């Protein structure tokens, strides 16, 4: 694991806490809004990281899950007048069910075949959101539902609380036997099933947890910005989520949060260039990171450290053995 070093982890956590506390004292509505969205994106980035970084299932349609959560929550609030809290939970749950649809192809397909199936499902969902005008109001989107809370500071603190709960939840999952099973599937699925891990169950579970978190984040986002359009199910948001995880460091819990902070603040500070160039920058960052620093910021720190201490980097073979050993040692 990239964060085996306690000191590094603590350093990162302190940095994140300081960054998220700053806007509370600065008391600027704009900054509060930006940091709130950053917190929500952290949740979604963590959910993609559970799927790709830990369970090894590459999905390019994650924004669709976020969109399902957002639409469910907004529609329930708009048509049935449910309270915002219930709506957000329902959004997460429905998104988790759609996540099972995403999981179904993963049982039979691997590699590019599976990635294409995720794109197909997410495009279908986006087309439904775009064309089913009676319910979703088509490309105009939904906007007349109730906001999260009326006070910006309280809304921000709420987003922050949900983010912390999600991080702790993800940490708990990853540190438990479930997380070890996910990682063994990522390293070698055949070997994992030969070792007695029920790969079908754990893959479906990975999708369920990931989609639940993504839907929760999406629903929170919908009530935070009070507009839902089919754009949030598009490839640009999927790309942004991927970039956040890859920049922060895949296969870590803190990584996606760091990535969300870095990338979202970068994009927000470059807003004067226009949305189009933001996307170009995001994509170029993805390419550079994946070509030259596959581990992201987390790995970068580790590499510097290992060079300075002249330590060798752990081999993946060793890692598999350790994971399987730990998994069975627990039994």
């Amino acid at each position, binding site marked *: 694991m990239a964060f085996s070093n306690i000191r590094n982890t603590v350093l990162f956590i302190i940095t994140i806490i300081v960054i998220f506390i700053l806007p509370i004292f600065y008391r600027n509505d704009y900054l509060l809004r930006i940091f709130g969205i950053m917190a929500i994106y952290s949740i979604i980035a963590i959910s993609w990281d559970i799927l790709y970084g830990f369970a090894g299932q590459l999905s390019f349609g994650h924004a669709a899950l976020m969109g399902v959560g957002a639409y469910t929550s907004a529609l329930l609030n708009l048509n049935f007048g449910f309270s915002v809290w219930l709506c957000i939970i329902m959004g997460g749950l429905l998104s988790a069910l759609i996540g099972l649809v995403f999981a179904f*192809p993963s049982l*039979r397909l691997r590699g590019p075949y599976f990635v294409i199936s995720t794109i197909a499902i997410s*495009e279908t969902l986006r087309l439904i959101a775009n064309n089913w005008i009676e319910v979703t109001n088509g490309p105009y989107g939904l906007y007349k539902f109730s906001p999260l809370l009326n006070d910006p500071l309280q809304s921000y603190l709420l987003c922050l609380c949900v983010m912390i709960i999600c991080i702790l939840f993800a940490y708990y999952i990853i540190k438990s036997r479930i997380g070890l099973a996910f990682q063994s599937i990522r390293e070698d699925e055949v070997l994992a099933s030969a070792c007695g891990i029920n790969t079908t169950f754990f893959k479906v579970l990975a999708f369920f947890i990931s989609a639940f978190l993504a839907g929760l984040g999406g629903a929170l986002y919908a009530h935070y910005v009070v507009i839902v359009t089919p754009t949030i199910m598009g*490839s640009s948001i999927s790309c942004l989520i991927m970039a956040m995880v890859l920049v922060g460091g895949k296969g870590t819990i803190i990584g996606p949060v760091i990535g969300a902070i870095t990338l979202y603040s970068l994009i927000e500070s470059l807003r004067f260039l226009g949305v189009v160039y933001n996307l170009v920058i995001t994509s170029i960052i993805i390419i550079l990171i*994946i070509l030259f620093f*596959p581990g992201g910021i987390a790995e970068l720190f580790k590499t510097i450290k290992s060079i300075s201490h002249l330590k060798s980097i752990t081999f993946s073979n060793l890692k598999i053995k350790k994971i399987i050993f730990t998994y069975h040692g627990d039994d």
Partner: protein
Amino acid sequence: MFDILLLIQQIINGLLLGCLYGLMGLGLALIFGVMREVNFAHGDIIILGTYILSTLYIWLNIPITFLIPIYLFMFFILGLIINKCLLEYPRLKGSGGDTSLIITYALSIILESAMLSIWGAYPFSSRFRMEGALSFFGISIGLQRVVSSVIAIFGMIILFLFLKFSMTGKAIRAVSQNAQLAWTLGINAHRIYKITFGTGVVLAAIAGGLLAPIYAVTPYQGAYYLTKSFAVVIIGGMGNLIGTILAALLLGTLESLSVFIIKGGFRDVVGLLLMIIILLFKHEGLLGKEVRV
């Protein structure tokens, strides 16, 4: 109100559309068949072709016959550049298949944004449209569609002759069957990869150029044509070129006929649903042999 003439006309339109889908799918299938890499920027290259051809036509103001070689050469070079700068390094380093997927996905976003900033988001259609229609037995088909489809079929035949008879084509087939064995026989597989990627990009560009006079395009349609090409490639069986073309004709016909049953906006769902069903129950494709995934 059910009209038999309308039905026949829709079927013919579908088959003509299918020829274009076939050309789109072939580029993707060729790259996948040889390199086992999926080019996610395929759809955006198709759209880029549409824009570039029309813009060159306006700028250079030379006959279309002289323009086409320049155009195809440009896209071949573009393919070589993409291959050299983005895909060769991870391939040589031996990092997994996910790397090339993510890189080409990011590339597709870059191309989309670039087109958006250069040509704007308004629907764009090309200047050189052939007006008129062919009419027979009460059925009328747009002349431009027929001409585009004929060129597409011609392009496919050239590709097959190239793969079947030329030395390079034979080398491409050898590498696609077993790259290591091809190395031992003295075929430089890296050179073959370059040529294949260039050819795949050129096929996408031809499809884009033929699409230009028929449909107005926007930069956002890259994903749309990408999913179409994917649907075709998957239904036909990945890496299987004959299957790809048959699947393209099938998809074009089904899409044209689907407007009798469902709303026009949901037409694109047909291909996606067919693709998901094929992926789940017969993922080697309708004609494909059993492939290890």
